[in-house]
Every structure is written in structure tokens, then in C-alpha cells.
């Protein structure tokens, strides 16, 4: 019996019996997107708009400590932010962080997904275990790596010193040029499994025919990978890249726990800089920095979508 048959057979009876179902069915039978989109949209409109509007409003005002109220200052905060060297530095750090992590996570994620995409016994367990890093709260991940990279007690430091790539006098997180790597390490460890998960689901969805045909035609593994797997994973990859890049750009937890933005401002990313300013009460300036982050992300995301012709 085809799927449609089973659908049809229960249709009239059910509908006749339940008025709510009947209403829903009628509403949802239309090809109009409205009812489908309504719940999600309503929720986003109700709660999501407020932060945006509030931030914009804040960025146009200034908190006066004496009158204890906000006064309108137009673009003053924006001018200040755009000429703030620390803001630009943070932007640079954030960009470096995002690009490097993304590249590494993509490559590793795809590689590991291919590695684990087998039906042999035990691979299910391996796949399950691979998702474990995702389950750890980022704050705890930060603490984990803090402990492991500690100059005195860290297990990673210990082996790093043995291998000659680290020195005890300069713990990784205290090193101006390399502290960012320490933070990136935490991120890569935690989020490569995310990519693995996405790619695994994508690999599982690939139709078998083209691959069989290619094998019959005599293509080798590499050709199959490059010409078939990669393009077909394209859409899934695009979504994963987009989501991950957005999260990377807004990173906060690891920096907060591991380095506090230091040494100096070596690991001060935009979200952390904004967070600092929020904490000491300059809401307006912090909101401005946050909006700058938003704008950059919107522009870059748009570019990405256009460039790679990501079709939604």
C-alpha cells in the first residue's frame, strides 16, 4: 500500500470527527505559507525585536551620571566606536579567530565524518562518542583547557615541553602571540564534532546511484570524493559554515574563562570587549559595539550567500 493510500484512508473519518483538526487541516492545506510560518515568526517578533530596538536606542543615547538619565547624542557613540583603536583590534582578533577555527573545523569535521561513516560494527559507538565534546558547557570546556594548559600543572603543557614546542616559563595562555591558539584549541575541540554531526547526516543522505555509477566507470576514491561527495555535500556544508561562522564571530565564553581578553588585549574579541563595557555600566557604548558586530555579520553573511550562491 502506498503512503498516499494510507494517508487517504484515514483522512475523511478523522477530519469529520475532530473540529480542531478540521480547522487546522483546512488552514494548512492552503499553499499559503502564513500558517506554517506564523508560530515561529510570532515568537521571534515578540522577543527578538526588542533586543535589537533597545540596542539601537541605546547606541543613540548617552547615560549622564549626574542627571541619571539618558540624553540623545545622535551618532556620537558611533563615531567614538568607529575611531576606537581597541574596537578595531578586537575586530581583527575576532576575524582571525573565526577564519582559522572555521577552516580547521571544516576540514577536520569532513575528514572525521568520512572516517566514521561506515557500517561496520562498533562505528555506531564511535560516532556517539564523537559527539561527547558537544555536551560540555563552553564554560566548563574553558576550565578544562585552562587546567590542561596551566603552566605548572597542565598535562598538555607537560607534553608540550617534552616535545619542545612549549616552555614552562611562558604558559601558552600567557603568551602574547599564541594565547589565541590556546583559545582556538578549546573551540576546535568542542565544535569539530558539530561539523562531524552535520556531515554525517549529510553523507547518509547522499543517493547511492551516482556513486555506484562512478565506481563502475572506474573513478578512483579521490575523484569520487572531489567530484561527487564534495559538491553534493555543498548545501549541508553551506548551512554548517554559516551557522558556525556566526557563532565563532560572537565567541565569549572561552575568552572569559581562559584569558580574560589577555594577555593585554591579545585575545580580546568583540563580544568580550562589549561585555567588559556592559559590566562597568557604559551600556550605550556596549550596545554600539554589539551593533557593529551585527552589521559586520549581516554584510559578510550576505556576501557569502551571494558568492557561493547558497540557495535557501
Amino acid at each position, binding site marked *: 500500500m502506498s503512503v498516499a493510500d494510507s494517508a487517504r484512508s484515514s483522512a475523511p473519518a478523522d477530519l469529520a470527527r475532530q473540529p480542531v483538526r478540521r480547522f487546522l487541516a483546512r488552514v494548512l492545506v492552503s499553499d499559503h505559507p502564513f500558517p506554517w510560518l506564523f508560530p515561529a515568526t510570532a515568537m521571534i517578533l515578540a522577543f527578538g525585536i526588542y533586543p535589537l530596538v533597545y540596542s539601537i536606542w541605546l547606541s543613540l543615547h548617552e547615560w549622564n551620571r549626574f542627571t541619571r538619565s539618558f540624553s540623545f547624542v545622535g551618532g556620537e557613540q558611533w563615531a567614538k566606536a568607529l575611531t576606537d583603536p581597541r574596537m578595531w583590534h578586537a575586530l581583527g582578533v575576532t576575524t582571525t579567530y573565526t577564519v582559522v577555527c572555521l577552516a580547521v573545523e571544516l576540514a577536520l569535521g569532513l575528514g572525521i565524518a568520512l572516517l566514521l561513516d561506515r557500517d561496520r560494527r562498533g562505528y555506531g559507538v564511535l560516532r556517539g562518542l564523537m559527539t561527547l565534546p558537544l555536551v560540555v558547557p563552553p564554560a566548563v570546556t574553558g576550565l578544562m583547557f585552562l587546567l590542561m594548559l596551566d603552566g605548572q600543572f597542565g598535562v598538555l603543557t607537560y607534553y608540550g615541553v617534552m616535545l619542545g614546542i612549549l616552555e614552562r616559563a611562558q604558559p601558552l595562555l600567557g603568551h602574547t602571540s599564541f594565547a589565541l591558539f590556546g583559545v582556538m584549541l578549546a573551540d576546535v575541540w568542542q565544535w569539530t564534532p558539530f561539523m562531524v554531526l552535520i556531515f554525517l547526516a549529510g553523507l547518509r543522505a547522499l543517493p547511492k546511484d551516482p556513486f555506484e555509477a562512478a565506481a563502475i566507470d572506474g573513478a578512483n576514491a579521490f575523484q569520487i570524493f572531489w567530484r561527487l561527495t564534495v559538491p553534493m555535500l555543498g548545501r549541508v556544508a553551506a548551512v554548517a559554515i554559516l551557522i558556525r561562522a556566526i557563532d565563532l564571530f560572537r565567541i565569549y565564553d572561552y575568552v572569559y574563562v581562559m584569558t580574560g581578553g*589577555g*594577555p*593585554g588585549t591579545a585575545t580580546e574579541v568583540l563580544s568580550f570587549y562589549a561585555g567588559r563595557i556592559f559590566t562597568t555600566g557604559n551600556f550605550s557604548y556596549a550596545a554600539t559595539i554589539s551593533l557593529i558586530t551585527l552589521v559586520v555579520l549581516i554584510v559578510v553573511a550576505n556576501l557569502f550567500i551571494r558568492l557561493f550562491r547558497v540557495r535557501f
Partner: protein
Amino acid sequence: MGFREHDRKTFIADSCREFTARQITKRDFLKRMALAGVGFSGFAAGMLGGARPFGGLNPLGIRHALAETPADMAAWLQEVSKPYAGTKIRYSTEATPPSIVANQLAQEEFSKLTGIEVEVEIVPLEQVLQKATLDVQGQLGSYDLYYLDQSWMATFSQDTIDPREMYKDKPDLAMPGFDWDDFSKPLVDGISMYQDKMVGVPFDIPIFILMYRKDLLEKHGLAVPTTMDDYMNAARTIHEAENGNGIAGTTGQLKSGHYSLNCDWTAWLWSHGGSIFDQAGYFSGGDAEGIEGLNYMLELVKYMPPAAKTWTWDGEGQSISQGQAAMLISWGEFFPGFDGENSQVVGLMEAAHPPAPKKLRSTADAGFGEIPNIGHQGGSAIALSRYSKNLEAGWIFMQWVCSKDIMARSSILGGGASPMRLSSFSDPRVLEKSKVGPGTTRHFEAVKWTIENAMGSEPDMPAWAEISNNVVPVELGKLLAGQHASGEDCMAAIKAQADELAAPFRAG
């Protein structure tokens, strides 16, 4: 620990627990203790059953030491809180020992007696600041009381009610015997006062004292340092001798971008005759004395574990208790932990007065009410929020938590965190704990002396929270990481930002 010894200790512990839970009588208990070979002086035996820990034995746990609230306090509480029973008050605080204890006692005693529910949010210090800032900006009244660090007093001064005024204005709610004079005056001035307003009641007082490993000093024939040069000398000597064994001369809380770095720096700045702001309100950390102090710090860094640049106060304390460093001038709050359960140096640490500063700038020559001295204090106060919707209930709670009895008990139960009230220092319960062991109070003398003679206080100025969190430690962090060419450059960078931030608050 041999089998018999373990048994004996278990027996003692079990008996203590049963006694606390009133499962056995005092006579039985004493009999058992005699069996176990534990003697009691007549005095101590007579004290059994009250809120007193055992002489010679470790505290049995919170429940025992809690015993009862003194009868008169209980009566007053019940009486005064009648109209407010059922309200809920909340405040957000850092996890300091007195705060944790206060929370415990509030649940177990205060709420039961008054019917006022107390909800305490315990979060790291930066979050406390964030939440208080949020609340104040929107005048939300989400929190009825604020836990305010002394560096935030100026920022929040307008958002709280002066407790003395409250005491005067509402006599029917005033706690009898509260005794305002019992609060150490330098403490009140240093922590709570801003422009003649008492912003809150002092609640805890971490203050810099000298703490050292007496075994290591003895081993190298060093006397307890009394001058800045002595201290540097001792640190260097021990470091050179023991660094190979994994013990550094000293330690620090130099995490870049964290307020802790600011605290360490000020101790050296002030002890060399410098100050953060000059009389006119301009940043003066880069003047001659300031640079001298900075260089002193940079020299000391050589004798610290390299990881000192990555930790804040908790890492610093840990480095001592894990035996990684020999001495430090830092928060006296650490001291009981050195005798505590996870420490590897129980009984080896001693507390002393901080060394005499080389030179001191007077308060008159410094700016914004800054008090330069080596004993940097990081105290906090509890303040009553102006926007609270449960003002009276909050006020009752505030008086209770700052009362003589609670403060004395807090300092013992809080594992030896130092008290605010003069009476607490001489409370017999406190004096009794003045020995090696967990919850020790043997550092109190050093703390008290430092409060009265060597207390250094940060400037009182609304922008100070921002400067001490976002500017000073970030630039200093850069210096420590080699991103500034010199100390002078670093100070100049700070000056540029600090002067701008302080501008609206300069007189004239």
C-alpha cells in the same frame, strides 16, 4: 593513620554528631570522650551545649556551632518582623566566606524566626557588578540589597539609603544594641563612606597582609621581612635556592585584564610613595615614585611562578596552599585556607604585619580620597537599595546580618574570615580558634593591626570601577606580556585613558 587511630577518630566524630543531634546526653558524651582519651578543662566542659566549638577538637559542622540565636535577638526579630512576614528579599553577592555563611544562617535562623524569605544569588564578582549595574540603571528593584565592593562605592552612592539615616528615621525598626561605634572607623571610612554618605555597612574585609612559610624562612636563615628591601631580598634568596624544587620565592595575581592585577600593582605603588591620582585628579602612576613601585613589582615577578601572570586571586591562593611559593603580601582571607582540607602546607604558614612602606604619600596629596598604604583593602559593604520594594524587610535583614552576634559567628564559621566589628576580634569564640587548624583565626592580629595602621584604599570616584577593570589591568597585562616597550609607556597609556574617564569628576 593506624587502624586504631582511625577507629578512635571515627568514634569521636560519631559521638560528636550524636551529641549535636541530641541523641545522647552531655554526660554520656563526656564519658565517651574520656574513653577516647579526650580531656576537657572544666571551663570547656562547662561550655558544652552552647554555641562553642570544642577545645582541641575540630568544629563539628555548621549545625552545632549554630546552636541558637541569642534569646534577646530572637525576641526582637520576631517582634519587629510581624508585619513583614511572608515577604521575599533578594540580593546578589560574591562567594566570599562571610557571604556564604550569612546565606546559611539566613535560611536556618533568620527566615525561621521572621518569616521573611531571603534569596541570595551567589555569583562571581564581575557578575555581581553587572547585576547591580543593571538594576540601578533601570531602577528595577530586582534586588533589595546590594553587595558592593569598595571600588564601586562612588558609582552606586546615589542608589542606596544611608543606613545611619534609616536607623534614625525608623526607630521602631532599629535593632537595639546595634552599636555603630563597634565598626572599626578606618574600615568604615575606607569602605563605606563617599562624600559624607555611608553607602552601606561594611561586610567583609580582605586586606593585604604578609603571609610566609616559616619553615622556609627558617631553613634559609631569614628573619621575617619588615622593610620592602627585606621582602625583596627574602623572595630572591628563597627563589634562587628553591626554584629547582618547584618553590618560587613569591606569587601574585597578575591575570591580564582582571581587577586582581590592579590590586597587586597598587600595593607596590603605594608602598613606594606613589599614588594613582594626584591632588588635582590626574593619573599620577607614571611619576617618579610610581615608576619605582612599578619596577619593584617587575622585579618581584621574576621570583614568581610564571603562571602567576595567568591567575587571579584564587590561583594565587592555590599556589601557596599547593606549596608552589614561599610567601606573599596579599589577601588575609586566604589564610584559613592554608590550614584547610586541600592544603599541602597545613601549619606551615604564618601571618605578620606587612613590611613598612619605603615612603608614603599622604591622602591630602592624593586624589579622590585615595589613601595610599601597603595594606590594600578590598572590602565590601551591604547596602540597602533605594529602589527596593521591600525596604523594611530588607532593612531588618541588613541589621541582623551585620549584628554583633552574626558577625562574630560569621568569622568563625566563615573559616576565619576577618570581622568588621571590633568586638568580634575579642569575642572568646574567635580567640579560641587562634591556633593551627582549619578555620584558624591566628592571622586576625595581623589583620587588625593592618586595618588600623596600614590600610590602603582605592580612590572614590564613579569612573573608578571602569578604570580599575578595563584600563589599568589591561595595560599592565600588556606590559607583563612584553607588548609595551617600557613601564613609562604603559603608565602613559593608562594616563591617556584614565584622565579622560576621570574628567567629569574633577573638582573645578
